[in-house]
């Protein structure tokens, strides 16, 4: 028995040591003009339900262009399963993910192949994408993903409620936002909130450290991405601004209001029901509103910026779906044909943008006359095109940075961190991220 156990232990160690592994092989190229053996390739992605059905409809055009390739699309697959498949050598040919925070790790480890050799061999034109997409699809010079539609975040405002409060223009600065929020707020006789003007609560729908930090211009990392920048005074400004408005409502009062929020992905969404007058949200909300409450009289604008950053108005957080070729892809050459086609085919991008209501990611698709643009949706196209729009820098620590700063803002907004402890808490969060960066070899 002892011998058996030691043999097993050795086996375990060996198997563990053999798990995964790096290595970049030169990609095989496919010349589409030659005749080819029929092949079926598989793409895994995170889409589900209606969006998955709409997504699956794009591949007939691909097969029309490359008749020997059939695409099998499997939806509802998140990064966790993709990672497991890559690890066990059962990766699909191509992958699609919503997990932007994982790009750094995917690039660093080669789990998603560096597409640079494919790009060079096929003379793929990368200038058809706005510069901002490269920030969230590459890491340390490795282009391990391409964009396939993106999200942009702005401010939704209810025009009827604005009119009732006597406000004529949506806010452009954070101080205007606070003033308008107060005018728009309606309290019940018992003091509870009936309609909130704006809810600066970290964790309320899309209001979080990411979306709030972008207009404030708070840096996540130092210039070379090796250290956390949570100790930057901007984060203190952001936290104080957030808390001032929370204190106007009363922390418990607002917590109760937030707890009563309707489901984000349904017609119960607070902005759709008129429970909140202004809200941070992504471009997809325009499709939800069209579907759920077509008569809602609303507008969209870029997120207000602090008064001293007025010149940056128009930018916002962007970042969306990414596609790539995993390590161990059985048909990388065909997968490259698919990935490069998906990322750049104008008809496909416009079709997806019109149906799923995400922002298309090439200049050609952004300018396409077939793109169905409402004034509300146009705002997000403009935010995406704005050179100041960005996603936070890629790192190999997953979303640990979001968790660390999110914890500070959430503890701060409920008074668990006091004014005197704010700087220390931010320092602690920065130290935590620095430790993780160091561990991840940055």
């Amino acid at each position: 028995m002892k011998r058996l156990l030691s043999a097993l232990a050795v086996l375990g160690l060996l198997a563990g040591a053999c798990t995964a592994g790096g290595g970049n092989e030169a990609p095989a190229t496919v010349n589409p003009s030659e005749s080819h053996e029929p092949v079926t390739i598989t793409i895994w992605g995170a889409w589900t339900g209606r969006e998955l059905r709409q997504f699956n409809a794009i591949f007939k055009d691909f097969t029309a262009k490359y008749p020997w390739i059939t695409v099998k699309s499997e939806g509802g697959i998140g990064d966790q399963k993709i990672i497991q498949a890559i690890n066990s050598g059962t990766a699909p040919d191509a992958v699609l993910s919503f997990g932007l925070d994982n790009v750094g790790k995917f690039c660093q480890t080669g789990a998603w192949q560096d597409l640079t050799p494919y790009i060079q061999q096929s003379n793929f034109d990368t200038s058809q994408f706005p510069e901002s997409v490269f920030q969230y699809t590459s890491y340390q010079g490795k282009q391990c993903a391409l964009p396939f539609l993106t999200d942009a975040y702005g401010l939704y405002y209810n025009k009827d409620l604005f009119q009732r409060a006597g406000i004529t223009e949506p806010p452009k600065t954070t101080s205007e936002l606070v003033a308008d929020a107060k005018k728009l707020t309606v309290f019940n006789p018992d003091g509870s909130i009936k309609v909130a003007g704006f809810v600066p609560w970290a964790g309320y729908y899309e209001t979080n450290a990411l979306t709030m930090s972008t207009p404030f211009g708070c840096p996540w990392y130092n210039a070379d991405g090796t250290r956390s920048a949570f100790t930057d005074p901007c984060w203190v400004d952001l936290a104080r601004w957030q808390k001032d408005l929370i204190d106007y409502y009363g922390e418990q009062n607002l917590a109760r209001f937030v707890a009563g929020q309707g489901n984000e992905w349904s017609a119960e969404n607070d902005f759709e029901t008129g429970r909140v007058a202004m809200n941070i949200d992504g471009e997809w909300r325009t499709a939800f509103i069209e579907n759920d409450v077509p008569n809602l009289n609303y507008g969209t604008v870029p997120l207000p910026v602090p008064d001293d950053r007025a010149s940056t108005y128009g930018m916002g957080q962007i970042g969306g779906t990414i596609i790539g070729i995993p390590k161990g892809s059985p048909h990388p050459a065909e997968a490259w044909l698919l990935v490069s086609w998906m990322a750049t085919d104008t008809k496909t991008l416009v079709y997806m943008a019109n149906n799923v209501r995400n922002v298309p990611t090439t200049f050609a698709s952004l300018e396409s006359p077939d793109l169905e643009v409402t004034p509300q949706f146009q705002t997000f196209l403009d935010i995406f095109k704005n050179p100041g729009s960005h996603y936070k820098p890629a790192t190999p620590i997953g979303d640990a940075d979001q968790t660390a700063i999110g914890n500070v803002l959430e503890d701060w907004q409920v008074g668990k961190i006091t004014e005197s402890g704010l700087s220390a808490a931010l320092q602690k969060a920065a130290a935590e991220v620095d430790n993780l960066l160091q561990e991840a070899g940055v």
Partner: protein
Amino acid sequence: MRFTVGAERRRRPRRNLKRRLTILAFMSPWIVGFLGFILYPMLATLYFSFTKYDLLSNPIPYGIQNYVYMFTKDPDFWIAVRNTVWIIVWGVPLQIGLSILTAWMLTKPKRGMKVYRTIFFMPSLAPPVAVALAFLFIFNPETGPINVLLSHLGWHDPPLWFYGRQWSKPAMLILGLWGIGSTMIIFLAGLLDVPRQLYEAADIEGASGWQKFRYVTWPSITPVVFFSLVTGVIYGFQFFTQAYVSSITVAGVTTTQAATSVGSPNRSLLFYSVYLWQQGWGNFRMGYASALAWMLFMVTMVCTILLVKTSKRWVHYAGGGFR
């Protein structure tokens, strides 16, 4: 005669071998399962716990650094430990107490016992995810029926339950206690198994109700109490599903963003297993998560051994117990 003995000698090893192979063949499904799904993963995690392993590249030897980080640098480790200890310290005794009480009540009705038993057992059959979602709805501070009722009863500022850090753990406790059916059913069996004549003898001696419980019922059910205590503590250390579901629901995020929100509100539901999951899958730190898992395993083991050791003093086995 000699010839016969020699033949038997020759035959016996073969028969023994055949017998052993038969036994092994019958045991093989378990052996394969144990080796492949328990022993191998355990040894692999032990190895990973001494490495820097991000799931995607080869594990890099890291000495005891994961364990050093756990105790010296990790800001959330002790929060997770405190939350887990809280749920065990409150949850396990309450679960045992309520199970005994419910089981005792179920021994009383002369008629319809089967119906009551089924009713009280049923909650434990509900899937934990569904139960957690239902409780979040019932305990919603703004729209849930509990707070509506509390407001009508004159409590103007009822708790935020799962949405506030002060009340989230008590709410989780209520959720956990709702499904005590399986513990209750074991106690019911234990209570029904207490010999009648002991009660009769106690009656003759003039014992009060409390004395009968203390000196007759309690000693008879101590093996069941002991079993519930051990399994309850082990379960408490591994508490995951309900906390995970309620956290991401409260935070209003989808499962792709779950790692940033588990433990919400304000990390009050960041239990040890939840934290371990977050580190392994959210932050690409499977080496560290493996170290956390081994720490959990060792602490659980120590607690179980302590319970077993102390059990000799207070657990009474009618048949004498293990020798």
